């Protein structure tokens, strides 16, 4: 059960009924162009086609998958194509939030470690004389707001650079990848189903993109 759940993270499975009277030979013939891409190797044993992809191009309409097995079985209602595809991109996206959470923890840890140094720097900054920033007469005439008057702690240009590193961006990216994973897991499953379905019916593949377009 646990293994099934783990597999679901990065495997897409499904089945599609073949058109009435369509033989497995004809079906694999129609699916053939999908596996004639650079970096793709395939082998066929009877009603089973196995493929592998390495360094597949972004333009490959199945680039999200790194391998898989397609099998045509005869069932009561006719031939059915069963597929099981592996995607390391999905696994990567699933794990990416953990990586960014780790970056957030690293940022927090470094911030703690740096605290004494930052306090010393702040003390030094307070001793700095405050400088009133000038404004060019042209900017004044054109109506640009004048620079702020110096604040109590000085208007230092390196403001922001001395700030403690914030883990917020790491959290934002962790959340983004979590959302992207859910989107990708649903979207890529649907897209590949639609792609295989269209190929089986002999319809043109709207997703396929070649440099010659």
């Amino acid at each position, binding site marked *: 059960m646990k293994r099934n759940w783990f597999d679901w993270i990065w495997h897409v499975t499904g089945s599609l009924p073949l058109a009435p009277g369509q033989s497995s030979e004809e079906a694999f013939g129609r699916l053939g162009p999908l596996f004639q891409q*650079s*970096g793709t190797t395939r082998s066929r044993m009877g009603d089973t086609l196995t493929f592998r992809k390495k*360094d*597949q*191009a*972004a*333009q490959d309409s199945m*680039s*999200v998958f790194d391998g898989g097995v397609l099998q045509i079985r005869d069932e009561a209602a006719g031939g059915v194509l069963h597929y099981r595809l592996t995607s390391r*991109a999905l696994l*990567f*996206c699933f794990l*990416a939030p953990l990586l*960014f959470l780790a*970056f*957030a923890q*690293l*940022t927090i840890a*470094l911030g703690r470690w740096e605290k004494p140094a930052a306090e010393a720097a702040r003390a030094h900054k307070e001793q700095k004389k405050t400088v009133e*920033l*000038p404004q*060019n007469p*042209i*900017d004044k005439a*054109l*109506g*640009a*707001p004048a*620079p*702020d008057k110096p604040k109590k702690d000085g208007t230092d*240009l*390196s*403001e*922001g*650079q001395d700030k403690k*590193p914030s883990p917020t*961006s*790491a959290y934002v*990216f962790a959340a*983004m*990848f979590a959302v*992207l994973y859910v*989107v*990708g897991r649903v*979207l*890529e499953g649907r897209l590949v189903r639609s792609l295989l379905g269209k190929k089986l019916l002999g319809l043109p593949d709207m997703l396929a*993109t*070649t*440099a010659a*377009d």
Partner: protein
Amino acid sequence: MEAVRVGNRLIGAQAPVTVGWENIPRVEGGPIKRFVFTWFQPTMLFALILFWYYAPNSIAKTSTAVGIGIGFKVLLLGLEWVNPRYRSWRLTWKELVTDLFYVGLGYTLVRLVNGYIGSGVMVKAVQHAFDWDKFTWFMGLPLLVQAFLISFIFDFGQYWMHRGMHNWYPLWLPHSVHHYITQLNINKGAVGNPVEIFLIGLGVGGFFDFLPRAALLAGAIGMAVSTYQHINVRFNTPRWWRFVFNTTEHHSVHHSQDFEASRSNYAGTYIFIDRMFGTCIDGEAELLGMEGGRRMSIREQMTYPFTEGWKTLKERFARPAEVMPAE
């Protein structure tokens, strides 16, 4: 393959490159679409300049710039969807995830490292070492002059760093992986080995003190021009714009599979720097990448500079195989 002579160079001998503006397709569609995709770039640039010039001090802050930057990229993603330059550059889920991973690295890990050894630290060190008070007059210059000088000095430095990367093997190693991208999308600028992302960020906007508003204006100019380097949108870029600024057309030539074409258009914002030094090629290319367009995985992008460097070192310093004397 028919190559075109540009100066002393033959462009397009290895992979197709369109040379010359007159050969580049125009935006297709109705008058509104053509109008929008002709004037979008200049309008955004001038709107951003006006915003940062007149925004009250309470709004003119770095956090606002970050927000605008994110919003701008989302808008451009929409434009990629509406009016793509090439179908073969269409953003897929996998490409988006990959690109965002590199963007994420830039916002987290690389930023963390930059805090210790990046350009900000170097500028501080240099400012500390010399009496730069003499240069406080820079802050008295008109805002737009300051902003232009900051962005120009930064881009000038970046031009030479980038050109160095294409001409010196130790710098080429970390940069080379960025050239394995086979399509241009708005986040592709972030794709690369973290060492390269760090190096390219080393450019210095100037050692002078400048007004915070001028730095924000410089950032806005950089964003409203250089973001278009990596974008899959067909624009009717105005003639004056493409003479002065870098465009997606220029940058696609730089990413072309044609070796000679890739050694051009090094500037990030001001293409006239390339014109000054004779490295500009006006044109565009669709077939991008290295090794015939092989896509490099994230894992390989992370390790390639080191494994390749190690391989080269071993080849160079390997002891010649000992020849056993015949008995």
